[in-house]
């Protein structure tokens, strides 16, 4: 048992890098990533789990980083949009978003890509309906949903074509 405390040390992995840091108990994972680690690719929208902009992967599964406290992440592995981006250039999914013009202001894009990454890991060739349902928890206030769905479909098609080649 840890004694109840307003500040504590947390050890976790962020984008495959070990991190050990003292945090305030009320520090959200989203604020921890952005303000303490400088990983500003994770966007903070509604701060109550509705908009999906702050979605990250925790041990490979999507999670709202505004609904987790950094203190809870002891021993866990967090992956943010930075961790899904290659050192050079773009990932195939990101490239597909670029080609399909699947972003307007770009605010929702990191959350969309993280959500789509989990979807494609679980279901390599999802139907349009499944893609729509998967991203239904991510709000795009520019309402650019059609191109986002196209981008995910395009990424699937590109992978299938790549596998055949």
């Amino acid at each position, binding site marked *: 048992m840890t004694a109840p405390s307003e500040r504590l040390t947390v050890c976790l992995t962020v984008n495959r890098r070990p991190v050990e840091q003292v945090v305030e*108990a009320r520090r959200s994972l989203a604020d921890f990533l952005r303000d303490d680690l400088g990983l500003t690719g994770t966007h903070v929208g509604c701060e109550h*789990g509705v908009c999906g902009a702050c979605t990250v992967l925790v041990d490979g*599964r999507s999670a709202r980083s505004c*609904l987790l*406290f950094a203190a809870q992440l002891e021993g866990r592995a967090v992956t943010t949009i930075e961790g899904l981006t290659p050192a050079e250039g773009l990932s195939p999914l990101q490239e597909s978003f670029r080609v399909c013009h699947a972003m307007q202001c770009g605010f929702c894009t990191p959350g969309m890509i993280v959500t789509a990454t989990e979807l494609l890991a679980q279901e390599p060739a999802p139907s349009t309906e499944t893609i729509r349902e998967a991203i239904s928890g*991510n709000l795009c206030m520019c309402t650019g949903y059609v191109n986002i769905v196209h981008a995910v479909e395009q990424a699937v098609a590109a992978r299938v074509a790549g596998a055949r080649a």
Partner: protein
Amino acid sequence: MKPAPFRYARAGSLAEAIALLAGAPGENKLLAGGQSLVPMLNMRLARPAVLVDVNGLRELIGITHTPEGGLRIGALTRHAELAASSAVIERAPLLAEAARHVGHAAIRNQGTLGGSVAHADPAAELPAALVALDARIRMTGPRGAREVAADAFFRGLLATALEPDEILTEIDIPAQPPGWGFVEIARRPGDFALAGVAAVVHVGHPLAPPSPPRAGEGEVRLVGFGVGDRPVRLTSAERLLTGAPLDAESAARAGAAAGPDCDPPSDVHGSAEYRRHLATVLAERALLQAGARVAGGPR
């Protein structure tokens, strides 16, 4: 929107969690999946002194078969696990279906069965499913362990039989009969339902395959959600169907009878009148689903 300062403690065992809660019951809160609690903290609708993180309590995790053919499900079971569990799909498919309707993937990965039940949002899917399934909610605290039938557990808006110093530990679900239905209307997939209905038609109903007589024979359980201050048994509709054939005509009559049992809220998403109308239509549809499953043999 940041929560007010609080102290955080990670419980290493159920006994530790009980001791931590007992420090200041009502002021100290349990943190499980956090998908309902953390928004309330961020909006400062809740200001606990201590958050007791129970996510490490292995004794609250797991889905096991009971000798009676039912399931015992640990309170920390995540919605995504419920939806994907072969044991749940086989023995309580209504619960798996309800879990698929909760929030979005990111919410289902974190949110827990126990958390949803303890939070008791009247529009939530899982509480209604548990009432329809006649589940028993098990909890423990400084005065020992006890269990409460789901019917009696939900007491009103966000109010339950769980005392502030108690921890919800497991949920026991009897073997589910083959006749079941689950329908809801929401603005988007993953939103809380404007209204929904869960139906269970017990073995022994005139339409069910012959089986030895047993308790609950001929019983129909119909539960509405989003249509009152808690999961609402649609008893008028249930009474019309008990021991009577379930067909398109009786399902329609029962659906129409469901309206007066509902006392839904009016808000920006829909008027009380609209939600009551939805309840009648959805009750009929849930019954038709249940009837089709009974008539169709194996689900």
